[in-house]
């Protein structure tokens, strides 16, 4: 060959060397960055979330995320341990005897992150813009009950209600929509539902950098009135996929995994077993359940619903999908919530009973056919779940396989979250994954929402329409929310929850918890009472 | 003829391995090239001319190999040269003009680049100097607008022009030997004549020894001092040009000459010759390669080994019948 081999070899070796240097250089730079970030002054906590944080508007919903709204915006009163209502932006409050007037005395040392003052006028302005879009917030009964808002003086704000709505203070602790943006955030139309000019809040964090669908950086609000956060910055990276999140965590690209369903139970168990990281599981926050659409012909039949309740092997799911990390649930609301400790018989796993009920309902097993039939129709039920939720997917596939043994054909439909909810509200499903809303919404807000017909209520409304007692239940729920008598309330709740249980419209699976996985140099991780809040303020990085 | 030859080929044998076996492409070839002289090499395609030329440049393809013989250039055997030494010789000492000028140039590079890269490979000069040199030599070859020409791509020029560019490139390095492998084949008659004139001028002006390879006796007759006729890898006849044309001794040479002169007169005979397939070079015995096609052959031809015999002074023939 005319090209000398030695030359060729040299040039190729050279090329390889360049490539290696290139590659090594790349990996080095990341390490260097990590090193410097360790040594340098600013303390940064890197967190990840499955979606974009949205436009950070406390008065709207998707694509806003609870946790990010809670970082920037604050409530008048705070939901503390055990449901105790604590002063927050309001130092104190007075409630009139008839329960229709609430007067809040606001803190005077609070400023918005742009320096503008927090006072009764801005509180009223925020309330009014939310009220102007009341139909968007129909799920929240308080909005419907507000008659008027008043500025009493610079630091006194008054709320007038139509009726004495007992959970008023509790609903004021909600992350959305009754939190406050500064004057400068209002758009020209003054209607915040159309979007904010910029996210100006009173909270401990200020959004400093934002790349849509990539990351958002929150910096500590140096003028914050309360306990200042220990870390300087919180970086929220968008990682849609749970498994990717685990990988990123293992590679120290993120410091903290927090939340419910953000990683699969398998990954949680894997990380826990590895012993290299700290893991924590919170107390039950909400109930994971299946909702039956009683509007569908087959499911209208209570026998079929009960059959499904008995057919579901809850314990197997708890043991093998949750690795025992979530507790088995027998009722829609965990018994330690207010008014929810009802005495009912749980539906035990009993295949024979389930078969018997199915036969009674007219769904007979026909020889040579895999699925039961009734009047020539196959027993096929559509189970809707969120495609990115690993746990829902695993349970769904488990149900599909397990029910198949009973001759029930489960058709799985997976949808992205946004589409999922649209479909859910339309009632285009037989079975749906749902969850109670958790602290502080349960049980009153959850129940309130199921009485609302609009698409801003709850998918449960349509799903429960097939129940003969639907009207009655709704009436009772409305009554309980406005009752001022504690005993009556207790009785009504028991009545409602028992009916729902006996009608077998919800199939409670487990009490879900938040999980936290973090590196050993992170401290101050504790679960806050509200499920969706992430304790960024107390976290410290070593 | 008393001059010291610049290039001496002694007893050159080249084998080529093919998928069907080993071909003995060049057999016992010997000749000399002297300064200012033109040595002609004639023969039909496949007779081994091109392989011989390649071996002079030490540029045989991978399948081909010199198995015997030597090529003395200025009293050194270039077969023993290292690749780097040989590379330095190519172009500067032993230059080449390719068969088809249209394909010899890289279509995506300009004439100027071809010219300059050659000059700068062999001479320690700057690009600018090289360009000036190129312009000067192109002018010498009567090429119009040489500066413009340097910017042009090969396919924009005619074959004749390209051939002249090639000669200009060759001249610019003043080589002692020029190998012209079928320099005129791809050209039309006018261009042929011009190229031959320029080659002639070249050897007179620069005292370059030329190896002129052609299948066209006319070309050879015009330019060569000495001629060798190749057939089947052998030189079958070698003589000064006038002797060969006047008294062709080998039957093949005679056929060649006849076919050229008597295109009309003895048509029948030519047809007959063409109908015989060219020699099979694989595993051939050391007998006369022209045996099957020879009109004068008899049983003796197949039983004797061949040798190049001197028929008269400087006139060598490889044929039993020529004695």
């Amino acid at each position, binding site marked *: 060959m005319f090209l000398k081999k030695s030359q060729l070899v040299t040039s190729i070796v050279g090329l390889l060397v360049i*490539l290696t240097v290139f590659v090594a250089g790349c990996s080095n730079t990341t390490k260097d960055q990590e090193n410097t970030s360790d040594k340098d002054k600013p303390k940064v906590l890197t967190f990840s979330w499955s979606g974009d944080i949205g436009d950070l508007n406390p008065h709207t919903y998707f694509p806003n995320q609870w946790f990010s709204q809670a970082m920037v915006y604050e409530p008048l009163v705070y939901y503390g341990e055990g449901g105790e209502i604590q002063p927050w932006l309001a130092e104190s409050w007075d409630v009139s005897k008839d329960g229709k007037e609430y007067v809040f005395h606001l803190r005077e040392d609070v400023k918005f992150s742009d320096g503008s003052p927090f006072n009764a006028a801005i509180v009223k302005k925020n309330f009014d813009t939310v009220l102007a879009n009341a139909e968007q917030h129909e799920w929240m009964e308080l909005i419907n009950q507000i008659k008027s808002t008043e500025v009493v003086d610079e630091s006194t704000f008054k709320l007038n209600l139509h009726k004495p709505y007992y959970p008023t203070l509790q609903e004021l602790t909600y992350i959305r929509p009754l939190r406050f943006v500064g004057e400068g955030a209002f758009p020209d139309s003054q209607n915040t539902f159309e979007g904010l000019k910029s996210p100006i809040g009173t909270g401990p964090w200020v959004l400093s950098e934002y790349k849509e669908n990539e990351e958002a950086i929150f910096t500590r609000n140096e003028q914050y009135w309360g306990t200042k956060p220990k870390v300087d910055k919180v970086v929220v990276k968008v990682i849609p996929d749970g498994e990717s999140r685990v990988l990123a965590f293992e*590679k120290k690209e993120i410091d903290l995994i927090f939340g419910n369903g953000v990683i699969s139970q398998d990954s949680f168990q894997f990380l826990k077993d590895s012993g290299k990281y700290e893991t924590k599981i919170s107390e039950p926050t909400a109930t994971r359940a299946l909702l039956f659409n009683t509007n569908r012909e087959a499911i209208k039949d209570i026998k079929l619903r009960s059959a499904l309740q008995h057919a579901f092997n809850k314990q197997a799911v708890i043991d093998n999908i949750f690795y025992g990390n979530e507790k088995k649930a027998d009722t829609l609301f965990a018994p330690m919530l207010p008014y929810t400790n009802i005495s009912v018989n749980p539906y035990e796993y009993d295949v024979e009973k389930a078969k018997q009920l199915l036969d009674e309902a007219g769904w007979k097993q026909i020889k040579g056919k895999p699925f039961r039939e009734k009047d020539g129709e196959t027993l096929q039920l559509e189970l809707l779940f969120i495609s990115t939720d690993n746990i829902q997917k695993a349970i769904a596939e488990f149900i599909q396989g397990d029910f198949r043994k009973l001759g029930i054909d489960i058709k799985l439909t997976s949808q992205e979250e946004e589409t999922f909810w649209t479909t859910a509200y339309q009632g285009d499903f037989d079975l749906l994954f749902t969850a109670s809303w958790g602290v502080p919404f349960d049980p009153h807000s959850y129940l309130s929402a199921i009485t609302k017909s609009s698409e801003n209520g709850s998918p449960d409304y349509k799903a429960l329409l097939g129940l003969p007692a639907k009207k009655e239940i709704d009436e009772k729920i409305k009554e309980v929310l406005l009752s001022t008598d504690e005993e009556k309330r207790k009785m009504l709740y028991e009545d409602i929850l028992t009916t729902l249980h006996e009608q077998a419209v919800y199939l409670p699976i487990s009490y879900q918890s938040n999980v936290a996985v973090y590196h050993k140099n992170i401290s101050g991780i504790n679960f806050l009472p509200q499920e969706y809040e992430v304790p960024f303020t107390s976290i410290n990085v070593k | 003829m008393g001059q010291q030859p610049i290039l001496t080929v002694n007893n050159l044998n080249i084998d080529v391995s093919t998928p069907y076996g080993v071909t003995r492409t060049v057999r016992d070839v010997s000749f000399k090239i002297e300064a200012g002289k033109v040595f002609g090499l004639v023969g039909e395609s496949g007779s081994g001319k091109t392989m011989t030329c390649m071996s002079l440049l030490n540029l045989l393809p991978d399948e081909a190999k010199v198995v015997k013989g030597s090529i003395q250039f200025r009293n050194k055997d270039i077969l023993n040269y290292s690749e780097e030494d040989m590379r330095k010789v190519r172009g500067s000492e032993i230059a*080449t003009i390719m068969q088809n000028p249209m394909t010899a140039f890289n*279509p995506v590079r300009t004439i100027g680049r071809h010219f300059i890269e050659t000059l700068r490979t062999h001479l320690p000069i700057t690009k600018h100097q090289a360009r000036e040199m190129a312009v000067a030599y192109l002018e010498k070859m009567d090429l119009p607008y040489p500066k413009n020409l340097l910017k042009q791509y090969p396919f924009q020029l005619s074959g004749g022009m390209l051939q002249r560019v090639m000669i200009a490139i060759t001249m610019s390095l003043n080589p002692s030997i020029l190998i012209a492998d079928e320099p005129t084949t791809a050209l039309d008659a006018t261009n042929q004549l011009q190229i031959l004139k320029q080659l002639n001028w070249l050897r007179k002006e620069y005292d370059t020894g030329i190896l002129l390879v052609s299948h066209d006796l006319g070309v050879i007759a015009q330019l060569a001092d000495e001629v060798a006729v190749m057939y089947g890898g052998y030189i079958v006849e070698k003589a000064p040009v006038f002797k060969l044309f006047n008294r062709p001794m080998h039957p093949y040479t005679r056929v060649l000459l006849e076919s050229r002169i008597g295109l009309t007169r003895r048509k029948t005979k030519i047809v007959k010759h063409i109908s015989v397939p060219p020699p099979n070079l694989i595993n051939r015995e050391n007998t006369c390669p022209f045996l099957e096609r020879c009109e004068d052959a008899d049983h003796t031809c197949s039983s004797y080994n061949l040798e190049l015999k001197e028929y008269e002074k400087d006139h060598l023939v490889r044929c039993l019948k020529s004695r």
Partner: protein
Amino acid sequence: MGWFIVKRLTSLIPILFGISLITFILLHLTPGDPAIAYLRASHIPPTDEAVAALRVELGLDKPLYAQYVEWLGKAVQLDLGMSYLSKKSVWDEIMLHFFPTVQLTFASCILIVVISLPIGMISAIFKGKLVDQLSRIIAFVSVSMPAFWFGFLLIYFLSVKLDLFPVLGRGTFAHLVLPSLTLSFAYIGTYTRLLRASMLENLNEPFVMYARARGLRGRLIVSRHVLKKSLLPVLTGLGMSFGNMLSGVVIVETVFAWPGMGQLFVTSILNRDYPMIQGCLLFMGVIFVVCNLLVDIAYSFLDPRIRWEGEK
């Protein structure tokens, strides 16, 4: 030259027209009433009045050709409508996601060149030797490799096991390596073989023999003469591959959580975000066509023969 470009540009017009027509028709194949879909996505109850009002607002009450003309008119002004999902302008969203994709495809192109070039060269020069056989096998495997699987293998071995690269997402330069390697892998094989074939063809050209006969250095011959000419078909191929890479991006971006057009496209499909699907398709179709045009033009610059033809 100018003439050549003008000619190519005019041939673009009917194709662009066709692309827009197909994109438009596709959206009208969607099941259900777009007005209702829009309302649902906007969380507005689809009452009869609301639907009727929106139909007028969206121009759905007009005949189809009028709708097309109107849509095209808007599209030309980069108004591709509003995403159901993010409630933002489709064009803005596309612009936001386009750059990461360009970055990825560009890095892949570089990788293809950096890797295929030497391997292709070696395989051509050592034709039939072990290196050549090896490169043939690699080429074969690379075109048969499912990209999503290969991506995971890379993550598993290079990121998780060897800890050489960051796992996912977009950020530092190192984040680019694995996705672009995955995206380019199939092409690396193809182009290695293409370059090899092209070089082998050119190595046997008479101009190589002449170059050697002129005493040029081997390195110079390979780099200036053979390589340059052999790269031309590779370049054309690369241009053609660009479109396929736009498709490949869909998978690679999903695997590596790369926030580009591919993800945007997949998300919009999963969410039935019809204006976004339409916008992405139209945009990528146009990009594909424009890229082919650019390659054609670049090719004519690099290959003087075509340039000359054009001038004639």
